[in-house]
């Protein structure tokens, strides 16, 4: 509660002295454990701000809304560490100017929310490096372990079962801060690389392409997973790919705003044990 109050005050202060034109935060949602995005432009709106452990959504995707940052004014945003990483990636991919973003960082353990020190993306570099070196012990995903133990046939069946529910509603895409393309490959029909019918094959292709495009860019904020109306465990694929790039290329997505995209760069001695 104290954190929430403090941040309300801070937001009001920065709004009134013109440092930021808007702050993006959370307000109560439809059920007690859900939160909605809040766009604070006035002091009154700041009073609606809620900040507690249920504020899960990574809000950074709102920053790339067409035109939001084009007036070069600053915008404040409430972000967990994953969200800060998203900001860094968006900056590294030239989708926003990191100097325009004022970060209200927070994290939570259990039900307790605490603020993070810093205002600008670069202030969090030490924190992010610490997370890279010592990843928080999230609850071990029993499902992930189960999948890794399966043989290829079982894994195939497992995922086809999951994907067969996919509706191609693209909520995962809409929820993801990294899916900022003006036109997604799935919407490109010349040629139609991804089958758009909701056959399992098309669903599989869509999810594979999505995961590939997020490889080395996903910060595991969980937006896609929470967004999925049919509960496909998308986070598992993203986690697996994040592991791949960190093991293979020591790439921790979003470590800094100048990080080179992992799949647009290379090292001459990259591993190639799999190549015949």
């Amino acid at each position, binding site marked *: 509660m104290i954190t929430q109050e403090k941040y309300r005050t801070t937001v009001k202060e920065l709004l009134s002295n013109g440092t930021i034109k808007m702050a993006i935060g959370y307000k109560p949602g439809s059920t007690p454990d859900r939160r909605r995005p809040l766009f604070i432009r006035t002091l009154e709106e700041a009073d609606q701000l809620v900040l507690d452990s249920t504020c899960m959504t990574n809000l950074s995707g709102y920053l790339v809304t067409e035109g939001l940052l084009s007036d070069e004014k600053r915008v404040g945003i409430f972000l967990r560490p994953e969200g800060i990483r998203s900001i860094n990636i968006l900056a590294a991919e030239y989708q926003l100017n990191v100097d325009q973003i004022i970060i209200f960082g927070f994290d939570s353990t259990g039900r307790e929310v605490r603020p993070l020190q810093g205002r600008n993306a670069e202030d969090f570099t030490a924190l992010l490096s610490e997370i890279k070196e010592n990843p928080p012990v999230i609850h071990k995903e029993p499902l992930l372990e189960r*999948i890794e133990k*399966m043989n*290829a*046939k*079982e*894994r*195939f*069946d*497992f*995922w*086809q079962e999951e994907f067969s529910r996919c509706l191609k509603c693209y909520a995962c895409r809409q929820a993801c801060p990294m899916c900022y393309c003006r036109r997604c*490959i799935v919407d490109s029909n010349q040629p139609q*690389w991804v*089958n758009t*019918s909701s*056959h*399992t*094959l*098309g669903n*599989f*292709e869509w*999810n*594979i*392409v999505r*995961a*590939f495009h997020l*490889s*080395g860019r996903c910060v595991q904020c969980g937006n896609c997973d929470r967004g999925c109306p049919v509960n496909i465990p998308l986070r598992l*694929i993203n986690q*697996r*790919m994040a592991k*791949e*790039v960190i093991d*293979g*290329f020591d790439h921790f997505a979003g470590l800094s705003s100048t990080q080179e995209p*992992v*799949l*647009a*760069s*290379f*090292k*001459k001695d*990259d*591993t*190639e044990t*799999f*190549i*015949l």
Partner: protein
Amino acid sequence: MSEPFEPKIVAFVCTYCTYAGADLAGTSRLKYAPNVRIVRLPCTGRISPMFILKALQKGADGVLVSGCHPGDCHFTHGNYHARRRWMVFRALLDFTGIPPERVMFSWISAAEGSKFADLINSVTEDIRKLGPFDQYQELIKETESPATL
């Protein structure tokens, strides 16, 4: 009586190294299994993971992707970029149940006609042992059958 299984394999190769290596196998009159269909691209850098998915959709039991050895790329870096993509894509396929044995990667230079022939033979045999990619065929079949209510 069913026909003996003949694997269908699609190979995506760069024109400067592996395609030239395949030509060399031809001019040297080496013999190899007739199961591979080659798609020629300028560089491994041009070979998109989408191509691999489309080959599987076309019923390929195996896919081979091949280009110049590191350092030999006609375009200097294309194969280095490709190598990273392959590694990531391969892990992704593996995790989602596409056996890595069905999607293979190799370096074959313009001088390695015999490596090309040998590799095609061994890849064909490996895929033959794995058998047809039935699981994927099921998916394809589903897309071809009329929708049912």
